[in-house]
């Protein structure tokens, strides 16, 4: 098991945001967490990447295991450097005052594998040709969709083999959304990238992922293969609009 979340309970201040969730992600899988706004999806990802309080949640019960080892004592930059887990966060959080190229370069900060870095640049520019066209541009001048591509590209450039994606479809026009998910599919199939995807667009997420979990107000209420979830009456009723 690559990543195992065990009975995780977290708090923001005194408010419990996750009430003991458990799920697993295996090597090479695409797993999705779906659920409504405020269900705890972003909280889950921020907990895995060890974002510290006050922005980040505080774990008070349960554990997060990576290849069987607890990662709760790790610093956020160590999660990226040592575990090769990278997050493309909600709201993109690109560095708008840097150029596209500089954003990507900064993500290689802790890396020394020069040859692989060059390959990764090629990979990112192949997956997202728009980023190559705009590589000299200040990234705050990019459109929302292009910024999202940059956020994902940046996560790849950290040298990660496990991506956590927080609503990569948010604010994207349908065509860009299609490009984005095509690129993600290719990353998974050709590069063996493990992906944990969070989406409000449940249909899109389930068509893309192998397996899924349904999160509702801090609890996992349903899980199964994507097909099972797509056919489940509860999911249909609550998330797929009938």
């Amino acid at each position, binding site marked *: 098991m690559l990543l195992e979340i065990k009975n995780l309970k977290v708090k923001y201040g005194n408010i419990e945001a996750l009430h003991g969730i458990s799920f697993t992600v295996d090597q090479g899988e695409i797993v999705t967490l779906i659920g409504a706004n405020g269900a705890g999806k972003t909280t889950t990802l921020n907990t895995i*990447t060890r*974002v510290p*309080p*006050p*922005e980040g949640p505080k774990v008070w019960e349960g554990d997060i295991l990576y290849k069987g080892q607890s990662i709760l004592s790790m*610093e*956020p*930059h160590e999660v*990226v*450097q040592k575990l090769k887990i*990278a*997050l493309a*966060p909600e709201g993109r*959080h*690109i*560095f*708008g*005052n*840097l150029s596209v190229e*500089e954003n990507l*370069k*900064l*993500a*290689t*900060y*802790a*890396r020394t594998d020069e040859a692989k870095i060059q390959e990764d640049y090629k990979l990112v520019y192949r997956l997202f040709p728009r980023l190559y066209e705009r590589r000299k541009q200040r990234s*705050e001048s990019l459109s*929302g969709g292009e*910024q999202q591509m940059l956020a994902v590209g*940046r*996560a790849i450039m*950290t040298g990660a083999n496990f991506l956590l994606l927080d609503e990569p479809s948010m604010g994207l026009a349908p065509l860009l959304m299609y490009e984005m998910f095509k690129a993600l599919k290719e990353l998974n199939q050709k590069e063996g990238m493990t992906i944990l995807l969070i989406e409000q667009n449940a249909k899109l997420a389930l068509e893309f992922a192998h397996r899924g979990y349904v999160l509702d107000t801090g609890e996992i209420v349903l899980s199964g293969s994507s097909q099972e979830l797509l056919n489940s009456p509860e999911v249909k009723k609550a998330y797929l609009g009938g």
Partner: protein
Amino acid sequence: MLESIIQNIFNALQWGSYYSLIALGYCLVYGVLLLINFAHGDIFMVGAYIAFFVSTLFLGHYHFFPYALSKPVVLALTIPITMFLTSCVGVFIERVAYRPLRRKGANRLYVVITALMAGLILENGNLALLGASRKKFPELLDKVVYHFGNITLTNIKIIVILSAFLVFWLLHFIVTRTKIGMAMRAISYDRFAVPLMGIPVDTIIVFTFVLGSSMAAIAGILFAMSYPILDPYMGAMVGWKAFIAAVVGGIGDIRGAFVGGFLLGFIEILVVAFFPSTFRDLIAFTILLIILSFKPTGIFGVAKTTKI
């Protein structure tokens, strides 16, 4: 007339150099932590004092080191050692005063108050340890005076101005071309995402304090070489002025801080050329106030926009 103008330009460049070197330190720390490090003027003072002790040590003024080295060697040793020790002081303040507050998520107001207190502690710590008597900074460079008509230039003045430009050029290179400089700019834009790139934020913060404090140390050495009387409060006024210069230049941008420092130097010298010197600060700050009221973000500052 022309000669007096040129003379004044050099004087302005010299004072502008001190202000710029200190303003750059305010600017760097502000860029990374959004903290106005009010202790920074006193770091400049500490730099001058450290330079004093290091240079007198190597000149053989103390019994436990009875070897007098030659002046050029002493100067060559004083600069890097002072930069290193002053950086240690800057980083120490960040570790014991600012970092604990940051960890607790304290409001920025409290951090600024802490910075003010840290500055006062440096001033009064110096007063308590070394007494109220002033120190005479030793002459590390034989003064050479050049005459061009009625213009007089000293070698020290030229060194001060050239050093300021050289330091700025180096800093600009670090900030725009290196990964650690990129990380500094990235933190100022989006603090949250920096660790997600595998970058240890605390390392970047420490590096920022090292850069800022070493520049204050250089300013301290250069200042002491030109005006060789040191007292515990020497950093207070110069520090405030450099801070204001950084704000007028646009505090988020190192070009702004650099230009702001020289702008203040020029305004001060210009005022003194036409008015009694007691009017200097009054008129200089009035002019800066007017500039700010027209451009509140400073000369190089831009209002930050976020895309939704």
